[in-house]
Each structure stands twice: as C-alpha cells, then as structure tokens.
C-alpha cells in the first residue's frame, strides 16, 4: 500500500511527510518527525498527554490521523517556547514546581497555552475544567493550577505571584 504525502505546517515551519492511512498524528509526530515531546499516555483520547494545537484549538493528536494535517497548522510542545525564551506557562511550571515526573507536562502546557490564548483571565474553576482532559497522576493539580493562573497574571502584565524561596 502506498503512503500518503501530506503538506502541513508544524510549529511555524512548512513540513512534508509520508504516512500510512491509519497512522495517527501522534505516531507521525513521534515516529516520523521525531518530535517526541508529545506523549502517548492512552492512545484513546482520555489523558491529554498528546495534546497539540490544531488551527488554534487543542486536540488529542492520538485521535487525529496524520493525513488530517494536510493544509493545517499544528503547534506542538516543541513550538511553545520562542527559541530559548520560555512561554510564561513554561516558566511558571518551573517556578511553581508544577511537574513531578513531567510526563503529563507537555500536554498540560499545550492545553494551558491554548486556554490563555483564548482567555487571559480564567478563574480557578475555568482553569480546572479546561484542563480536566489532561490527566496528571503526580501533582494533585494544585501547583499546576497555580502555575497557569500565575502565568495568566504575568501575561496580563501583572507582577505575578512570587514563589517563596
């Protein structure tokens, strides 16, 4: 069976790849393009570890076929920082110790960025519901939520919380 040729845009770069019809976007990212920052925690749309932003919306890349990327714009965890400048969400994850093992972290950061792209002033409850599709077994979400709310404050131009040292 011949492979499909797909032309797309990933993290701002034009990208072409070949994939099988049944290959998921997550498999394409990880196995064909070596963008292994997106993780597979379930492969069934339940954990959010594979979250990417597709034309501005968060999707589970494990539920998307590689061929569906044709003509679209995809942002993965590798495209969230600008060069060596971390996105405020990434910076705040570090400061708040919002990761323990770090496996859920790429998905959470992608989803949180998408939230803040849409709403720079989310409440705690809105943040919790937005991130309800991103499972984290390590942190109990406390520091994750604090990090996202703090990143929002910084992006609004407020000083942000200081993590006591």
């Amino acid at each position, binding site marked *: 069976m011949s492979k499909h040729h797909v032309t797309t845009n990933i993290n701002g770069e034009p990208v072409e790849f070949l994939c099988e019809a049944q290959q998921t976007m997550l498999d394409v990212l990880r196995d064909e393009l070596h963008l292994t920052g997106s993780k597979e925690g379930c492969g069934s749309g339940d954990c959010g570890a594979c979250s990417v932003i597709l034309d501005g919306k968060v999707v589970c890349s494990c539920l998307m076929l590689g061929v569906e990327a044709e003509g679209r714009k995809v942002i993965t965890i590798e495209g969230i920082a600008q060069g060596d400048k971390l996105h405020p969400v990434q910076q705040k994850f570090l400061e708040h110790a919002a990761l323990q093992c770090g496996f859920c972290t790429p998905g959470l950061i992608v989803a949180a960025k998408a939230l803040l792209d849409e709403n720079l002033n989310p409440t705690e409850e809105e943040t919790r519901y937005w991130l309800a599709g991103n499972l984290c077994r390590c942190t*109990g979400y406390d520091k994750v939520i604090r990090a996202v709310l703090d990143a929002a404050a910084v992006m609004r131009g407020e000083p942000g919380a200081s993590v006591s040292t």
Partner: protein
Amino acid sequence: MTYLDKASLKVVGTRPIRPDGVDKVIGRAAFGADMVLPGMLWGKVARSPHAHARIKSINIDKALAVPGVKAIVTSADLPAIPSEEAFVGEGPMNFRDLSSNCMARGKVLYDGHAVAAVAATSPAIAEEAAALIEVEYEVLPHVIDVEDAMKPDAPVLHDDLFTQGIDPKPAKASNIAKRITFTKGDFAQGWKEAEVTIERRYTTQPVHQAYIEPHACLVSVGADGQCTIFSSSQGQFMVRAYCAKLLGIDIANIRATPAEIGGGFGGKTLVYLEPVALALSKKAGKPVKIVMSREEVFRGTGPAAGGVIEVKYGAKKDGRLVAAELVVKLQAGAFPGSPVGPACMCGFAMYDIPHVNIVGYDVVSNRPKVAAYRAPGAPNSTFGTESCLDELAIELKIDPLKLREINAAKEGTKAAHGPTWANIGYTQTLDAAKAHPHMKIALGPNQGRGIASGFWFNIGGESAASVYVNEDGTATVVEGNPDVGGSRASMAMMAAEVLGIAYERVRAVVADTSSTGYCFLTGGSRVTFATGMAVTQAAEKVVVELKKRAAMIWDISPDAVDWKDGKAYPAGPNAGSFEPLSLGEIALKAGRTGGPISAEVSINAQGAGAGFATHICDVEIDRETGHVKVLRYTAVQDVGRAIHPSYVEGQIQGGVTQGIGWALNEEYVYDKHGRLDNAGFLDYRIPVASDMPMIEAVMVEVPNPRHPFGARGVGEVPIVPPMAAVANAIADAIGTRMRDLPMSPPKLRAALDLQDPPRLAAE
C-alpha cells in the same frame, strides 16, 4: 557533620528550579518510549484472554510468516529458574514467579498475562503478528475475590503453594500463601478490661498506580552477549538485577540506563518488558523496542492490593484504648507477595495500645500480580483502623482529634509491631491540625469533616554517590536513583550547602549502571534520605580535600584551615594570614596540588525516620446523584526537614489525590469470565483537575537526627490517611458510614435511599 540548625542553611529549604526542568517543559526529556536505535525492531506482547487456563500448545507459524516479523519468543526462550526469594525490588518477590509473570509458563493466571512476544520491523506488523499467534487453552475455573479465593473449594492457582505460617504445614495446596501475626500484650485480657467495644469490617479494592507513562524499553543484545537497556523504571540497578537473573546473564554484561520516568509510585519497581525484549533482541540480532498500550498497562501490570480489613477496638469510657485487633486479607494477584506485612504493621502504628492482636493473610487470585503502590499495604489497613476509630469516637462522644491525642504514640511508645519509637512527630501533626484554621470553617448542609492519621516506615538502604569538583569551580553530583519528582534538585542542594557554593553551580546527574556505584531502587521514600546522605558525605569528603589543598598552597597544616561559604580560611591568627581561597581557585590549581578533586561514598543508610501524617477533609454530598465533592483538604505531615519544600508539598498533594481517587472512584471491574472490563482511563477514572480542590500541605519539621539535614522520607505516608478521612467526612455529612471502597455515587445513592425511603417510593 550535621546541618540540623535551620537558621544556618543557605540552600536547603529554598525552592530553586530543578535542573531537569527546562527539558521537561519544552518536550526534550527522553522518557522510556522516546529513544530509537538504528535498525531497531518493534516488539509486541501477546496476552491471555482467559483468567485461568492451561496452555496446551502455542503455534507461531502464521505469525512468523508475516513479512517483517524477525523473532517470536515464548516462555521456552527464558530459562526455567528455581524458586528463589529476591530482594532487589520493593516488597517480597520470587525470581521464578517474576519470570512466569513476564512470560506465562504452563498456565495463564489472569486476563492479560503475557504468553508470547513478537519483534517486527514496524509496530503495525508486530501487532498483526501477535494476533496471529495461536494458543490452545484449556480454560480452568477462576477466582477473583479475595475471600472466595480463601475458601477450601476455591480453584487453586498454584498446586505447590502451601500456606506458610500455619503449624502443622497444611497437606493441601491453597491460595493462601501465608498467614502472619503480630501480638503485643494479651488481647483477650485487654478486651475484658474494655468498657466500650466496637467491631467492624471494611473492604478496599485493588487500584492501579496509573502512572501516565506506559511501560517502555529499548534494548540491544550484542553478538558477544553484552546488553544495553534503556527503560523507564524506578531503578536501573533493579532492572539489571532482574534481567541478569531471569535470563542468566552476567551482571557485568548489562548496562542499564534509566530513562526519565513518567511516574511509578511503586508500580515500576519490577520488570515486565525488559527480559522479553532482551530475549527478542538476542533472537533477532537487532535492538528491540517495546511500548505498552494503556490497556496492557491495566491488564498486565500493577495493581496495588485491595482486601478485607476487620477491626476491633476496646476502650475505656475516657477514650483510652486498651485492646485492638486487626485482621487483614490482602490480594496478591496471581503470585504470592501482597504487602500484607506492612499492612499489618501500619494499621495501629499511630497509637499506644497495650493489648494488640494482628493477623494477616497473603492471598493469590486470578488478577495481575500486585506491585507496590505508595506505602504498600498501609492504605488498606488504615482505611479500616482509622474509620473504626472514628466510629468509636462517635460511640464515646469524644472529638475524633481528641481521641487520637489521648492515644497518640510518643517518644518511647512501643509499637504493636515491635519498635520503640524515638524522634517521631505524630503528636506534632495532631497539634498542627488542631490549630489549623481549616478546623474552624463552618460547614453547611450535607457537608462533613473527617480526620484521619497514618504512618509509614520510610527506609534507607544502599546508595552510592560521587561529587566531582570541576576545573572552573562548579561541581557535578553523580548518583543512581531515577528522579521521580525533583530529587536531582534535592541532591544538588545538599551538595551545594556542604560545599558552600551556589545551587546553580552544582549539577546532579542520574547515571547508568556502569557509570555510578550501586543504588537500591527509588522506593520506600528512601532517596532524599539515603542517597542524600551519600551525596552529603561525598561533598564533605570533597571539603576535607579542598582544605588539604588550601593547606598545601599556604604550606600550613590542614587542621589550620576552615571551610566557610565555599572558601578556605586560615583557622585563626595562629594559622597565618592568607587571603581566603575559593573553591574555584583551589580547583584551578588542582593539577599542581595532587590532581582532580572528587569523592565517592557508598553506604547502607540506617536510621530512616518514621513518617506520620494527619489529614483533615471536608466533603459535600449531592443527595440526588450520590456524588461526593471534596471541598477542602489539609494534609499535615512530619517531614523531618524539607530539603526542597515545593517538591515535598508536591509529594503530599499527589499522594492525597491518589488517596481520594482510591476512596471515591477507582476499582477494577471484572466480568463473569474474569476479564477486566475497565482497562482504560475512560472507565477507570482517576481524579482530574476539576474533581479536586487546592490541597494545603502543612509541613511539620521534627528533624530526623540520623540524617545530616534531618530529612525523613515524605513520598508515601500522604496516601495513607485519605480514604478514612473521606469516609469519616461522609459519615459526618450524612450520618451513614461507608465501609466499602470505592465510595462511588451508586453506593452513596443506595445509602441515602435507605435513609430516605419515602423518596425511594416516590420514584
């Protein structure tokens, strides 16, 4: 040397950014499934669809004929090894059983048990071929429930399993692997002295550790027998030891590299894939990568034990406990080895009770072999003992926190399981809980508050660590414990504190088995304590050497040199007058004063400090749906000394959340054939962000004098109190006691319907 004086610390106790942090927020960290090797094959495991069956034959011809298939292995490709106790992982383990768990031998013992494995040129081909492996089974009767498995007429899993701990030795094989007892005083006597008695029965369900990263490994076996393993585990030395034994390989021929680990919680303290991948790689002559699907993780790995917990308390009217009894029947899964020992020991460890009787049963059934899960065993027994204590408090009309104060274990108390407590902080957790503003928040209708305490031993054990001074005055720490939650940061902090240099100038590395000395696995809440002790001692040896070098440069005696804030000073006016020499300056001259400056320390760390915690939980019950919402949660814990407080809080918050999941939602659902019905995150629901409130972690610091900085293990005890805390809060809210986990909406609804028959009739 010790550093117990908190005021003198500059680095320990602060909250710097972890050294592996940036890689983890930009997607660059390499977890188990993220590595590739040139020419590698993909492996896939074929698994049993039956709960219990004899394997009559395995035909691999069709699978082997699929283009791209390079090797297939079954148990015939793993050497048959004799029964032998292993002490390389967490909790009891037998090498022979572990081998049979990795690849079924003769019989399959649970739905999901591995029977064969394929290596092929793509994941899709491997999967297709695995499905073509033809196994002929003779299906046998199965048993899932722990008490069913204990019945005399239950289907027997192992015909060579005779209950240990019973005299005389039984003549008939059974599913009860062992019976253990602990006694203190004379329970019968104590029971007679009691003025109020209570007897209750509780049940817990096995739950999965549910780390978000599925098991994964990439291995390579060379033609000369040398092997490399890259895998996600809680200990590269554990992986090496198990693989060597299960495959008959010399340890020196295995180099195991720890991947970043995407959560373990005890569930990655044993091997599933690595031996199978090695066997495939050997046969195919190529590297092999295997990654489990989530379904395989649920069907084939973990879970934590569940079981039946029977509790009796006898007390005086003033609340003093005079007698207590605990019977624990714990699920081991398909092979012996449930954490029934710790379950028995932890249940009453918080209290000073004169007469105690404890009995535990380790019971096999047709479920996956249990693995450790955060304080293994303790959450089970403690759900029973701490729920029952709450029931006793209600009966005695004594405030539950007060009842705990009256009976709290203190310095010098002899615990029911043997030790006499020293330097413990249990009462301090009660004091802090009592004083916490949480206790004063008023509750509304259908809301309730529960208190529960818990204990976990924490362990020390074997660790090695090295500290290298680099030529520019920075330092490198090398150790061998996978970093599951910020331990690289803690190691670097302790070394920086001792060396007197900035945290950012010390980098900590977790090395492969050929690049650092032996470290027992990451488990038992041991790493900050034991490996931290090794790092501290190595840094101290480096300081001794640095002083020696300064003395050499100044031409004075090393005793006349002081080390402070990363600099050598003459110890006093008699030592001479010299400008202080910084670590960097000494490092620069190291070549001329005797060569590179470094130290390695290997220890068997003793004196781990016991961990105690007291939790306060507020819930609200939706009487329509039976849903329990956790409104507020405060977890007070004696942490000894928090090295990096944020990561200590994180351990507490994560453990509490897992406990709440165990309390309210999580369970395995088996169909009548013994097949797992909920092998996915949709149907096996772990807590999500919208289920949880913020969790306030209150760190009480009663330093452990056996650790240079006073650290105690912190990772496990947080999962011990939550189930009882939630149950006690539910009882407070609705006046009904929930004794069976999970306390899910259908169970709450049933309980509420009993309270409210008119509504039931109206529906």
